[in-house]
């Protein structure tokens, strides 16, 4: 099995980073062996990267359904379980039920959206990871693994495409 090393190339802008990703692909580095780290969100299409799957909308929908059911329970379930007949009035009332169901549906939707970010991103995660603080200064880091024997060739190619630095990626305490 070929020994691989993890490298990090740092770019000043989106254009050279996109060119570098294209170059890496032509040199045999697959998209699954690359990660882009940036200080602002950069859409995949600008970097020529495949779309990233996110479960957040599905989790949000799931949360909304749970919230809706909770609202139904409070609006219709509790008066059924513990009936309190007052002056011949009905046990259930439509308009108040809409209010209760709406609030709990939205709470379920928003809370699960929030939790979805944690689940999909594996937050919180404080173990050491490959990172450079220049990223939060606006640089774009392309993190990739390559066979050790290609390291020098790739480094030269990255530098030629405008990389400010190409260095072994070190996991650091975040």
């Amino acid at each position, binding site marked *: 099995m070929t020994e691989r090393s993890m490298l990090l190339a740092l770019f000043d802008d989106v254009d050279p980073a996109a060119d570098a990703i294209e170059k890496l692909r032509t040199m045999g580095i697959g998209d699954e062996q690359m*990660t*882009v*780290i*940036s*200080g*602002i*969100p*950069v*859409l*995949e299409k*600008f970097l020529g*990267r495949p779309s*990233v799957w*996110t479960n*957040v*909308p599905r989790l*949000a929908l799931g949360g909304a359904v749970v919230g809706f059911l909770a609202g139904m329970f*409070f*609006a219709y379930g*509790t*008066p059924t*379980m*513990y009936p*309190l007949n007052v002056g011949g009035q009905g046990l259930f*009332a439509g308009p*108040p*039920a809409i*209010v*209760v169901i*709406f*609030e*709990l549906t*939205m*709470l379920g*939707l*928003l*809370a699960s*959206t*929030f939790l*979805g*970010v*944690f689940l*999909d*991103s*594996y*937050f*919180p*995660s*404080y*173990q050491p*990871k490959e*990172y450079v*603080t220049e*990223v*939060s*200064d*606006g640089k774009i880091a392309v993190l990739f693994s390559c066979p050790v024997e290609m390291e020098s060739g790739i480094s030269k190619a990255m530098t030629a495409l405008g990389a400010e630095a190409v260095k072994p990626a070190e996991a650091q305490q*975040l």
Partner: protein
Amino acid sequence: MSATAKTPILSHEEEYRQHLMLDPRPRGEMNAMVMESMQTTSWKFWVVTGFLALVVLVSLVGIWGYMIAEGLGLAGITRPSYWGIFIVNTVFWIGISHAGTFISAILRVLKAEFRRPFTRAAELMTTFGLAQAGLSIFMHMGRVWLAYWMFPYPNQRDLWPNFHSPLMWDFLAINTYLLASTMYLYLPLIPDVTMARDRSTGWRKVFYRILALGFRGTEGEWIHLRTAMGIFALAIIPVMFSVHTIVAWDFAVAMRPGWSSTIFGPYFVVGALHSGIAAVAMVLVIIRSTMKHMTYFIRPEHFDAIGKLMLVVSMTWAYFFFNDYMVQWYGGDKFTRILLEFHEKGPLGWIWFLMLIFNVAIPWLTLWNKRVRSTPWAMFIIGLLINIGMWFERYIIIPISLTINRMPFTWGEYKPGAEIPLSIGTLAFFILLYMIASRLVPLVPVWEVQEGQHAHSLRRVGKAVAPTVSELE
């Protein structure tokens, strides 16, 4: 010839550079500015903080503790005004809290670029404003140790809270809004605390490290975060509308003169936006004048844009006010007519007139002028007057309107007692929380500013340059 031809081009370009989005600086420099603004604290800051902490201790903790021990008799609420300043403050603070969602969510959805540098300043107001609203309602409750009776679970007698009651809708709506707005505050904060984590040492490093959750800015992390922010921006808007509508229903569903109105829901929502946006303007003036480097991020263009919003909202508020007034006045109900006369000619009639002057006359007479809108101190004064006017509006709707009911033998004037120091205490607590947050949380979302600057550029069109915006989001 060439000189005259160049002059307008240069002046145009210079004019465009007055806009934050067209006056970019390197991200590292902006980061350093925001970090310095958080970490630079003068002795004056500590004096003000200490004073506010003292006010909170005496006026909020002390007086409230005394009232809990002695009972609600210390407050002025009595027949016929069983709802007084505590409820006025609750409605007022919920109103203030609407600004964060409006500025952040609605303007985000509408892609209003001027929002970028001050979304967080507004979102913080939402969370801290709701905290004051919560405190005020607990004060009104009197026996706060029984607050858990509101929680949706059966009590010892197997009775659930009555979900047909507007008070339970309030409980659900306010808690939903508080949780949602806190989550909405936190999500876009993650990249900024990551930036702060990368630039801090000591206890700050530990603090930001915990808050950053291990964020690096990978493609996956950004897509999850952005998707969530998109869902939040859309979904929190109806929640915001529902909160103040439900607060309005606390009054409107009662068959009382002055309260029973079908228009109270939207009228309250617009009133909330009126006071909230005015409060954002005030906070921005204070941040700009007291925190380092904030003149770069918060510019006259931002006050100008907020001023336009304030003017439009003031006109909308006037429309709803008149709509409500007209129908009640025309209706001819005996007690409603007496109440309307009492509003204007009663012992507190001056409040009614000041409400209209502060909420309508002053914004309309001043905010049409761009120079006024672009002048921070003028915007502060107008914002302050609008907030006083909106507080008066709630005071008129609640204790003053409760004075007149359908049983004349109960009529009597409301005279606040412990409510006054407790109101001062909540105001001091809001400012104190904000001041502490300004030292701990990056008030400017730098990544959002950089993202906006990335999307904006100047393009030569013929003989001049024109600003262009790329669709990068």
